[in-house]
């Protein structure tokens, strides 16, 4: 066997060996990925049994809107808790015997005639319905869409 042919023969051997090892490694990582994906799906499925997904809109007086869609909250949480989770705890309020009155969301306070009001979306009527209770008394439902509106107009909707 000539030296030139030797080089090709040895290079081919090394290449095929590397191919075998990398193929096996690829299969190993693919299997790891499939297993991880299954674990994620299972965890998500378990999570769905004990949690709700809700959508929260925060609309400021200048018309800016911030949507917090598909926010996962434990079953039984109030609107106040859900808003606090969605905004990373940036919700302030004052408590009284009537419940909580939200004074600030995302650092934007209700000053002067502006107040933070909340609404829930009525899917059957396709309209926003003003919240009848304090935010801490309203227990969120699965898939519910709620909105916070900073306004001086008590008849306005988001």
């Amino acid at each position, binding site marked *: 066997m000539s030296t030139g042919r030797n080089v090709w023969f040895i290079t081919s*051997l090394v290449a095929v060996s590397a191919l075998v090892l990398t193929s096996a490694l690829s299969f*190993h990582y693919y*299997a790891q990925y499939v297993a991880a994906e299954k674990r994620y799906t299972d965890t998500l499925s378990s999570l769905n049994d004990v949690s709700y997904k809700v959508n929260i809109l925060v609309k400021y007086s200048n018309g800016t809107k911030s949507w917090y869609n598909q926010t996962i909250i434990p079953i039984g949480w109030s609107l106040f808790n859900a808003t606090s989770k969605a905004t990373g705890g940036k919700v302030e309020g004052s408590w009284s015997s009537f419940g909580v009155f939200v004074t600030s969301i995302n650092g934007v306070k209700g000053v002067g005639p502006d107040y933070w009001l909340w609404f829930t979306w009525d899917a059957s009527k396709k309209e926003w319905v003003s919240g009848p209770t304090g935010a801490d008394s309203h227990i969120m439902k699965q898939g519910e869409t709620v909105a916070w509106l900073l306004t001086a107009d008590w008849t306005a909707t988001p």
Partner: protein
Amino acid sequence: MKLVQQSSTERDTNAKPISTARRTALIASLAALCIGTNYAMLPLPNVKLMDAIVFTTGLFFGVVPGSAVAAIAWLVYGTLNPLGFSLPILLTVIVSETVYAGAGHLVRRTSARSDMSSFTSLERSIIFGAVGLFTTLAYDLITNAVSGLLAYNSVWLGLLTMNVPIPLGIIHEASNFVFFATITPVLLRLLAKGAVPIEMVTRVKTK
């Protein structure tokens, strides 16, 4: 020059054939080396020198002595094993281990037929390494298929566990590539020395 540079059983050699006693002693020593290194390397899963030793035995002495080393080593290591004992698995690994002896024998025959004098030491090591990798792949496929059949009643599940969740097959194949490339040439040189009859060594020394 051949891949196996000195063997008393080669047809074209003029060396005096080694005695049966010396041959038996060398094979027994190789089997002992397999067993000893297997226990020493127990904490390293699927990293064993045994495969390279069995291959070298097949390469130097032929398929039957190579298979004998494989069988002896597995009979001891497979029976007195802290990881457990299973007769069907033991029989499978004994039979599968002879793949290395067979590969050694094939390389020996190929080497005897072809002109391989142009290969350098490094190239020979790479050839041994590649043969080690492919035979290990064959060994792993056979043993995992049988294990899968025995444990899960499924060949495919057995093959799947070869590299999942722990890449034991890859560890086995990669380590054997390295061992076949490094241990086999060294062992061949040692065997070549050990296979020379004492009277010949004495004669050389006294000259």
